[in-house]
């Protein structure tokens, strides 16, 4: 018995749907399992937060960088800008002038490490070099 072209395509489509359904089922099971096991593995990991980045990246006082740290992370200006810089090993002149730091508020990178700690996952949200 000959099979027509349209019958073949229906059979192929049905097969594909079957494969897709089984794939969807497997993905759902894997997702459910990983969600169920997540607390067991994340005991030592820092809590991951989804940050909202909007607007053009800018270091301006009212720009995205400062907004993120001030409004979302609830940091006060003085948390970063009110310390006298003790570390002078900075190439950029403005960053190593300790008195200028106090006067004009260059931020000491050491303060960043309060949250952006190294040692966590490279792609995690809390490593200094992984953002």
């Amino acid at each position: 018995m000959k099979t027509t072209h349209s019958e073949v395509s229906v059979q192929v489509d049905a097969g594909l749907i079957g494969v897709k359904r089984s794939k969807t089922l497997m993905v759902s099971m894997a997702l459910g399992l990983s969600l169920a096991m997540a607390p067991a593995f994340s005991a030592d990991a820092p809590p991951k937060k989804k940050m909202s980045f909007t607007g053009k990246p800018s270091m301006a006082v009212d720009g995205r960088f400062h907004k993120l740290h001030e409004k979302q992370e609830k940091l006060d200006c003085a948390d970063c800008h009110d310390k006298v810089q003790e570390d002078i090993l900075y190439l950029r002149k403005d960053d190593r002038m300790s008195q200028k730091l106090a006067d004009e508020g260059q931020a000491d990178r050491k303060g960043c490490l309060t949250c952006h700690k190294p040692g966590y996952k490279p792609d995690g949200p809390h490593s200094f070099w992984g953002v």
Partner: protein
Amino acid sequence: MAKFVRLIDTKRCMGCRSCMAACAAENHFTPDAQWNAMIEYEVGTYPTVHKIYNTMNCMHCERPSCKAICDHIGVKAITKNEFGVVLIDYNKCIGCGYCASVCPYGVPQMNADKLQPLYPGKGLNGAENIAYADRHPTHQKKAKTAEKCTFCWHKLEKAIKDGKTDRIGKDQDYTPACDLVCPTQARWFGDLDDPKSEVSMRIKATNAVQLKTHFGNGPQVYYTLDKGAKS
């Protein structure tokens, strides 16, 4: 694959700034955007005090935070190539300054609104005489973009093209300008993966260290520290 690193010996450095001058001429600094700086400070207690000279340039980190943030905001202007060199693509840079703000070493410099020669009003200096279009891409600087030390990538690239990577750190054409001119042999450049390279052996022999390791960036510039020197 070679992994290029620099060694700076603060015991030998006398603070002459030849390295800075060479870099300025080779990479035509623009005002207030130097790629190599000398930091000097005093240590000890009177009468046994002495001065430490610590030159700083880009550390070409293993895990560069400048690249991480640039990628994170989707600009992707900073790359780290297979030889370990971190480069900024001036055509992609949007001048946001994020790289400068996150670098633990204060390396990236932001160009002003208008590019100027190193000595405005006093003619051109060194490589500034090369026509803009004829310059290496790392020297085709742009206003309102970030720039920094490239480990003289134009020279390393030439060595790679010429098949002379074994001459890097030895030949004038293939060695970063700052490392060539040091009169006290306080600077060494070469392949860390080659245990027989001068730089590898000296790093080991002098117990050289990286600066500010607590940031976790894995800098590729090593320092032999004089007594009392900061790290």
